[in-house]
């Protein structure tokens, strides 16, 4: 049955659940959760029944349309059931991240006017029952005493909680039983209630951590959530036998769109991992086909692969290093939108069978058809790596308030961009470069905060606070938060971090500081070469060198670094491109207070220390003689004199 018919009959999430229940009943798995070492399946009937009786149980406890319910828990079927049960009663669900402290939980529950809290386990329940301290260290009584609106705390994992005797507590199963009782007295109450809710009703409150002020609750309508998942179908093909592993926090909009939306609209099977530590293992067992990870997850899997390669046998390592370049070359050809020659197709086939197939299997990515990343800057090289080994990873841009804005289509994946704008969505840039969004996918305002709504939603355009630009062929590149930007002399903004993150991924660049802003009218950078890697590179090319300083100023090395900068420059708008750079004669040093102990550059210290060099770069000199004080490891002080070349980029 096509999606269109599905949407005609069902314009809210609970109606979709009912639709799927009627269509699939007991014949198809809706969710799976690993418990007791076995994947336990929930059919659509199980899903529907559990939701139905929980909803009726909540009604019997006094839940009314328009009420709010907070849900705190890890990814489990109960979370999905709880959300839909609340929505079926015409109420609004709001997810709270499980690592929130009591004082944060208080803010969300209080601000959302929640009448009930549905909590996972002892850890979450204790947040309501034990006295706590706020940020200032003031003692508070337990939340249950502070939150006057809160009627019940419902828990679904009895471990450690079962012998608590607080009257505010009630178990999930008990509420389900209450629901069964309630139905006997009020037959048809659930079905009637579902019918009363329509697509213009708010279904979730999603709190966003604003960079300024307290978190704000973005209100989402049923229609918006459905539209978001629906628009995905216009560019992606999800099937009802696709396996999805749910482990993004359900309180986050991405899990709502991909997990809840994907499940209800496409019927994809949602699998819940056993525990946070078993996620990778569980993904492998399930053979996930649709995967959504944050950049950090991709980075850590990448590192895991690198570590495994170091530990593997020589033959395997040799094969890996032989075929990885084939993978890169093949993706380069695809990226350039050319047709690979039969030779490259053959090489790629070999690479797949010799290395990539097993490699992907080891980390559970064998079956992945579509993989996504979003939410934070990711180095394009991570994307390139996964595409090289044959994982179809795409980047998207979106958020709680703006919905799904851009996504890579088909094979047109470019690691530096977030892809073209989705259908029915409009994107425009302000003169400052702020990304503005308009379309049906926007939220409908902040709960109890019309001023904030007005500030962010002006003339129907959502002001994202993100800084970006659109490439000539329509891909959006989001670079940084507006607040983190610097302004060039002409008033144009640029993001120092954006270039730094990308340059640092080059094996030859250990650290880099981009300079600009204030009275400067273009961008420059100071580079620390990576001695080990550049040294090895030089040796391989028989370029003799004596010291770090000598190596850094070799013309070939300067060319090497220039190539990396030119590559990054291509992803930057004209005015933000790096025009000049110098390879520093020494490394930034934490002992010299140029770096923090966690190796982050102390911008002001470094800019102050290399003021002469920076002035020279903006002054038009081609060389600068520097004498730098240095502290030797044994504590002695000394100076070195050397000529630093100032290099202009193409």
């Amino acid at each position, binding site marked *: 049955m096509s999606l269109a018919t599905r949407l005609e009959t069902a314009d809210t999430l609970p109606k979709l659940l009912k639709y799927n229940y009627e269509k699939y009943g007991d014949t198809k798995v809706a969710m799976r959760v*690993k*418990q*007791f*070492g*076995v994947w336990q399946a929930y059919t659509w009937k199980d899903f529907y029944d559990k939701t139905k009786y929980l909803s009726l149980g909540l009604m019997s406890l006094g839940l009314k349309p328009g009420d709010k319910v907070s849900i705190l828990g890890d990814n489990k079927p109960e979370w999905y059931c709880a959300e839909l049960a609340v929505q079926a009663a015409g109420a609004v669900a709001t997810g709270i991240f499980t690592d929130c402290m009591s004082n944060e939980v208080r803010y969300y529950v209080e601000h959302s006017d929640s009448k009930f809290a549905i909590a996972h386990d002892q850890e979450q329940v204790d947040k309501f029952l034990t006295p706590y301290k706020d940020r200032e260290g003031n003692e508070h009584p337990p939340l249950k005493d502070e939150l006057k609106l809160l009627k019940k705390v419902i828990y679904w994992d*009895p*471990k*450690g909680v*079962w*012998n608590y005797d607080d009257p505010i507590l009630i178990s999930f199963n008990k509420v389900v039983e209450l629901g069964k009782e309630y139905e006997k007295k009020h037959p048809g109450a659930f079905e009637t209630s579902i019918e009363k809710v329509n697509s213009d009703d708010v279904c979730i409150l999603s709190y966003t951590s604003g960079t300024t002020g307290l978190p704000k609750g973005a209100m989402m309508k049923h229609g918006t959530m459905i539209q978001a998942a629906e628009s995905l179908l216009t560019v992606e093909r999800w099937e009802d036998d696709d396996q999805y592993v749910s482990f993004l926090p359900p309180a986050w909009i991405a899990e709502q769109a991909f997990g809840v939306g994907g499940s209800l609209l496409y019927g994809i099977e949602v699998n819940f991992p*056993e*525990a946070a*530590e*078993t996620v990778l*293992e569980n993904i492998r067992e399930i053979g996930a086909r649709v995967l959504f990870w944050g950049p950090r997850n991709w980075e850590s899997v990448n590192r895991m692969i690198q570590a495994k390669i170091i530990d593997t046998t020589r033959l395997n390592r040799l094969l890996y290093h032989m075929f990885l370049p084939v993978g890169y070359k093949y993706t380069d050809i695809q990226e350039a939108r050319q047709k690979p020659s039969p030779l490259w197709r053959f090489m790629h086939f070999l690479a797949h069978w010799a290395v990539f197939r097993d490699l992907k299997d080891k980390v559970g990515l064998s079956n992945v058809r579509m993989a996504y990343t979003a939410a934070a800057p990711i180095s394009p090289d991570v994307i390139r790596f996964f595409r090289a080994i044959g994982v179809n990873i795409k980047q998207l841009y979106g958020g709680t308030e703006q919905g799904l804005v851009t996504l890579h289509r088909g094979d047109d994946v470019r690691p530096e961009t977030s892809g073209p704008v989705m259908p029915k969505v409009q994107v425009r840039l302000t003169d400052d470069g702020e990304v503005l969004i308009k379309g049906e996918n926007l939220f409908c305002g902040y709960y109890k905060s019309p001023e904030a709504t007005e500030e962010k939603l002006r003339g129907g355009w959502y002001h994202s606070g993100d800084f970006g630009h659109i490439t000539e062929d329509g891909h959006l590149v989001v670079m940084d938060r507006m607040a983190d930007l610097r302004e060039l002399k002409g008033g144009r903004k640029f993001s120092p971090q954006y270039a730094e993150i990308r340059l640092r991924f080059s094996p030859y660049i250990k650290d880099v500081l981009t300079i600009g802003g204030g009275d400067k009218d273009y961008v420059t950078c100071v580079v620390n070469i990576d001695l080990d890697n550049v040294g090895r590179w030089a040796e391989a090319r028989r370029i003799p060198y004596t010291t770090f300083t000598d190596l850094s100023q070799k013309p070939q090395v300067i060319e090497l670094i220039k190539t990396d900068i030119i590559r990054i420059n291509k992803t930057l708008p004209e005015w933000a491109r790096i025009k000049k750079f110098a390879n520093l004669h020494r490394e930034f040093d934490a002992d010299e207070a140029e770096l923090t102990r966690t190796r982050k550059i102390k911008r002001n210290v470094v800019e102050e220390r290399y003021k002469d060099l920076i002035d020279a770069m903006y002054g038009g000199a081609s060389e600068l003689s520097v004498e730098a004080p240095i502290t030797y490891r044994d504590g002695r002080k000394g100076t070195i004199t050397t000529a630093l070349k100032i290099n202009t980029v193409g």
Partner: protein
Amino acid sequence: MATTSGNGAKLRIEDVSLSFGGLQALADINVQVKEGEILAIIGPNGAGKTCLLNCINGFYRPQEGKIIFGDRDVTKLPSHRIAELGIARTFQNIQLYTGLTTLDNLMAARHIHLKPNFLAGAIYFGPEHDKEIRHRRVVEDIIDFLEMEAIRKKIVGSLPYGQRKRVDLGRALALEPKLLLLDEPMAGMNVEEKEDMARFIIDIFEGQGETYPDTPILRDGVKSIVLIEHDMGVVMDIADRIVVLDFGQKIAEGTPKQIMADKAVIKAYLGEEE
């Protein structure tokens, strides 16, 4: 529930003496472990704590005295018979099958509850299959309880020390004992691991009720636990009663409060005041 002898003690150690050649490891020890208590045995190194546990579960045979479990004299029984009667223990220097997985180690501990039948075993399908599932269910509850899901299929030899200790405890639980002996369950652990372990011990003692309705050992708990531990903080927090040994002698016995104030104990631990 185990039968208890007249005065409410589940285990009675009566006048037990143990010596190795000229070395007196235990001298006339009298200790009772009651139903419904966590008893801690403390003392300096070489005080005879582990020797006492080894006597209880039949590794050592005391030259004198009796050990009575419920109303049965177990002094002369071999250790596997004692395990079958319901005394399980963990070890200071963990004793597991290092080449097997966590799951297999726990399943192996179920052997005392298996009544193998050669013919049924050969056919496997049918009753044996059901039996396997039943035992696996108990083991899985224990894995869930001790939060060992992530190491279920890991080879025990590859696990870090703290996790092996946890597997060792799981293995003891899988025997479904009526009396649990824990030999330094927290040795070599960091603070967080110690807190977890202390929590587990208390949870085992209290029972978990409806959380594990099908696994009696977790549902009802183990109502008598003997614990050897060096970390005084932990002992004072979780023990109901403490017995102090020094050079094979029992020098004190009482509640944590009494023990903390006991002069003989302070002397044994800190030396004599000048």
